[in-house]
Structures are given as C-alpha cells and as structure tokens.
C-alpha cells in the first residue's frame, strides 16, 4: 500500500483512478474479493472476464451505486467515498451500464436528460421540454447517431439504437473525466460499432478522458484499448499493456483458465 494514494503509474503518468482491495459480497456470493487496479490519464483500459467475474459489480461501485464492503478508491491520488450516483457524477465519473439504464416509457430526449433536466421555476423545477428536445436532437446529429425521432419512447428503438442513446447520454456531460462503459457494443451493428469506437478513441485522445471498457469481444478491445486487465473470481489477475500481450495470447489465456475452472468445478 502506497501512502500517497498513488500518483505513480508505471510510466510516471498520473493515475486518475486507483482502487485498493475493493471487496463486495452479496450474501454468500463474494462478487469482488480484492480488486486492485489503476487508470492513467487519457488511457483506455479494457476489462475482460467470464460471466459473473464481477465486472459489472466493480463498475457499480465506481459509479456510486453500490458501497464496497472494504477497500479504498482514489481519484487523482485523493481517497473518495461515493455517497450516491450524483456524488460520483460530481467527481466527473460517467457510466454506461450493462442494462443501459434507460426508461422505456420515456422519450429519447427525456432519457438523454434523465435526472439532469433543464429546468426553470426554481424550487418547482419545471421541465424545459422544448429546449431539451432541441438540444438532444442537435447533440445526436453532431455525434452522428441516427434515430428516427427524439420524441419516440425508447421502447420503440432497436437494441443497438438504445445502446447508442445510453452512450450518447454519458458522453454528453461537460465535466466528464472518467468514462465507464459496461459492454457498450454488445448489440451494435458494424456501422454503429465503428462509430462508437471512433467516439471512444477521439474522447480519450482529444478530451483527455480516461476510459474503462468492458467487452467480451477481444477484437474490439484491441482496437480501442491501451491496456488490458483480466478479472477472475472477483480479482484482477492479469494486467498487461497491449505491447505485452497479443490478441491470440489473451484468447489462449482465457480459454486455458476457463478449462481450469471447469476442471476445478468437476473435481469438487
């Protein structure tokens, strides 16, 4: 444990985010045992792991939704404890959740602005629907996401379109410093995938935003990531930059460890 929270990335680059021995159990299920990871400024970190390894749980802790049982989170070297999602957002953490966090009944633009509505009337917080709709429409046009109408309820969109809306909602924020993407490409077609990949790349390079991406498609990850972490049974077991590991090696490693898990399971 380093006393100064850790502004010491391997290449001497500043760590925007670092976790120390994060743990969380759901009753008897230890979803996270002891997660140590770090994220450098402007870096894209790929997080891989089998189903149930604890990736989404980690994201939900980093976004203030779950409180960890133990461990510490450092932002820019300072320890933080998130009291709520709002709190994490105020620290500049934006998230695309695996379930997308969209409300089917609401229109696209209401989803885009959910809990960050433009309002007037002070305490009453009257919605400024027309302003929001116009801004939503313009923003989606700007980043190249094509949907039939911002007035349509999200339920009427396709899976890929919904994902695009969820990503757009996260990257719309101005004070964003860290972006957490939990399988943002899972349901997307080739065109949308390359669009989102382009978006991620430009965000990390131009806006200097640090990103964690979770994806089961390693080919995609190798296109966007600088470094790969593998989570297994609630722990980070592999931490390699792209220069240290090839796509084939990663796949081989995952297959091997999967075989070992199955064998261990059979032995019990």
């Amino acid at each position, binding site marked *: 444990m380093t006393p100064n929270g850790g502004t010491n990335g391997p290449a001497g680059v500043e760590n925007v985010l670092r976790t120390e021995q994060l743990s969380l159990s759901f009753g008897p299920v230890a979803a996270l045992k002891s997660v140590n990871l770090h994220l450098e400024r402007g870096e894209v970190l790929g997080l891989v792991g089998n189903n149930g390894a604890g990736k989404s749980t980690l994201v939900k802790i980093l976004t203030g939704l779950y409180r960890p049982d133990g461990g510490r989170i450092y932002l820019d070297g300072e320890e933080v404890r998130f009291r709520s999602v709002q709190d994490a957002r105020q620290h500049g953490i934006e998230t695309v959740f695996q379930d997308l966090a969209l409300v*089917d009944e609401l229109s696209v633009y209401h989803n885009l602005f959910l809990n960050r509505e433009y309002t007037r009337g002070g305490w009453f917080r009257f919605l400024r629907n027309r302003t929001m709709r116009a801004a939503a429409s*313009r923003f989606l046009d700007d980043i190249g996401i094509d949907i039939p109408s911002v007035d349509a309820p999200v339920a009427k969109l396709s899976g890929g379109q919904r994902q695009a809306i969820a990503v757009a909602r996260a990257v719309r924020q101005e004070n964003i410093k860290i972006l957490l993407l939990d399988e943002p490409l899972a349901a997307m077609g080739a065109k949308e995938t390359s669009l989102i990949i382009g978006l991620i790349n430009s965000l990390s390079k131009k806006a200097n935003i640090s990103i964690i991406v979770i994806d089961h498609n390693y080919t995609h990850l190798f296109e966007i990531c600088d470094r790969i972490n593998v989570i297994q049974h609630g722990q980070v077991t592999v931490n390699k930059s792209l220069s240290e590991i090839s796509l084939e090696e990663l796949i081989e490693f995952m297959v091997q460890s999967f075989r070992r898990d199955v064998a261990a399971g059979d032995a019990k």
Partner: protein
Amino acid sequence: MNSNAPASREGSRRIPVSTIRQFIGQHLTEVVSALVAVALAIFFAIQSPNFLTSDNALVLSQFIAPFAIFALAEVPILILGEIDLSVGQMYIAAPFFVTYWHHAGIPVLPSVVLSLLVCCGLGFINGLISISLRVPSFIATLGMAFALRGIILIYSNGAPTNPIGSHMLVNILGGWAWSEAIWAVGIAVLLHVMLRGTTFGLHIVAVGGNSESARESGIRVERIKIWCFVLCALLGGLIGILDGYHLGSLDPATDGLTFMFYGVTSAVIGGTALTGGRGTMVGACIGACVLGMIKNGFLILGTSSFALDLVTGMTILLAMILNVQIEQATSMRGPRGSFSRAVNLVFSIVTQRGKGKVRS
C-alpha cells in the same frame, strides 16, 4: 461539447410527422375512455330527460368529484407500481382529526391544517413501511387502513358527529354545493402540471417504468416513492375534510375501502396501469366521469340500489375489457386474438387516413 448550452433556437429539426396521430397513439386508453364517457352521456340522455339538466349536473359533479380526487391521489402511486389502500380510511379519519384538535382548544383553520399534517405523517409512515422496510405496499397500507379505522372507532365510540366550523370557512371547504367540484378541478390541474411538467413528475414515471434504471441514473427512488405516499395521504385527508363539511355529518363506521377502490377503478379506467409506468391525471378524471355517470345515470333510470352494484360492476368490466383489448391490439407486441386483430385493423385504417391528411 457546446451543445450542452441551452438551444438558441427553440424547436427541433425532427418535427413529429403527425402530432395528432402520435397523441392518439400514446394516449389511446384515455381517448377510448373519453369516448366511453361520451357514449354513456348520450345513452343516459336518450333514456331519461332528467339526465342532461342543470340540477343533475350538480348531482353528477358531487358523484364525480370525490371519485376524481381519490383517483388523482392514487395515480402517482399506481404509476410507481405501488398501491395505497389506506387513502379511503384517511378520508374517513381526517375530519375526526379536526374535531380532535378543535376540542383540544385550537381554532378551526389551524385544526384543519394540523389534521392535514397528521395525514402527511401517516402517509410518510405508509411510505417508510412499504419502501424502507420493504413490506409490500398492498399489505402495509391495508394495515394502516384497519389501524386508522380502529383509532377512529375508539375515539368516537362509534357514534356519528358533526364537523365543526364557522360559516364562511365551511362554504369554502365544502359546504357550498359546487365547492367540491371546484376543488377537484383545481387539484387535477395542479397534479397534472406536477406530473407532466416538473422533474418530480418525470422521475415518478421513470421510477415506475424501470426503478433500476432510475436508480442508475441517480434518481433517489425511495425518496420519490415516499413523497408520493405522503401526497396521496394528504389528498385523502383533504377530500375527507371537504366531504365532511359537504355531508354535514361524520360517521366513523363508514367503509373507507370502497371509496379507495372507486378511486383506483377510476384511475385504471382512465388508462393508469396497475403494473406501473403509465398513467395520467386527465385519464383519472375521465375515469371518474365514467364511473360517476354510471352511478348517477342508472340511479336516474330508476335502477334499484341492489341492481345498481351489478350494473356498475358489469359496466366497469366492459369498459376495461375494451380498454385492455385496444391497448394490446396497438401495443408494440402486436395483436393477439381475433378481437385484437379487428381493433388493430380499424386503428391502422384510421391512422393511415391521418397520415394522408398531413401529407396533402
């Protein structure tokens, strides 16, 4: 990302193809309920010359107003996927709270305010038990309903009393024949603006639609739900006090559950989903009109009070079957069953025509 700034020019590039078509599509159950209401009005007007008279308008308003206020109170809770069974008993209890405070030596108006605060407190307890302690709201509020009934019966010894108050205030509060209707309209407008025009309303719909998504978006789900229970109890208490002054006597043995169910039924007839996520204040009012007209209309036609319940039940069932079938026929899941198919066909023809009009 400068598009974060408020838009300089209002209005979007993506203008909806046809606002009317979209409106009908989104508010189908409300539209159907309104049609049912009109059909009922025509039916009763043909059957009896006494239905469409100014005298009966007043009577009708007195049927509809309490249904409407109960329905309005339940709508936010129903949207959240919860239910408040205690609102009817809150209605019975509130005027007794007023007499209690008054006997304790407090003037009428402060007594009323104090009683409403007590109702809010009880609503808060409803919320705490069902949200924080995770007792299903159906049971939590049922317990509250029985407890309230017990308290009032003990307090009053089961004997009816009269509401207290001076003349002017009584008139405003419910003594004047039309005052309840005016309260109902006022509350409806307020709640409609709240539900459709404020972040609180938007968050109610978000939580009701998908509470996990709402939580992930940073909405404080528990807080929203508890506030809705408080609001419901407050409205229940308010209508109770109004009606107490309107009727001029308070009977502690009145069954509050029936009133509550009229409210829930009105809301559901007006398109509020019992499963949550959907509901409008306008729909609740339309539902209350339908229910009120059924009650009033069949009474005018001379239906015996025994048969009245039967007729009411059948009409409610009919209206709801129509509503559900039409909803299903036009929902995204596609039509199921022959009736749904037929309705869908009619609907698609209507909307096709709507499209043509817009193009020309």
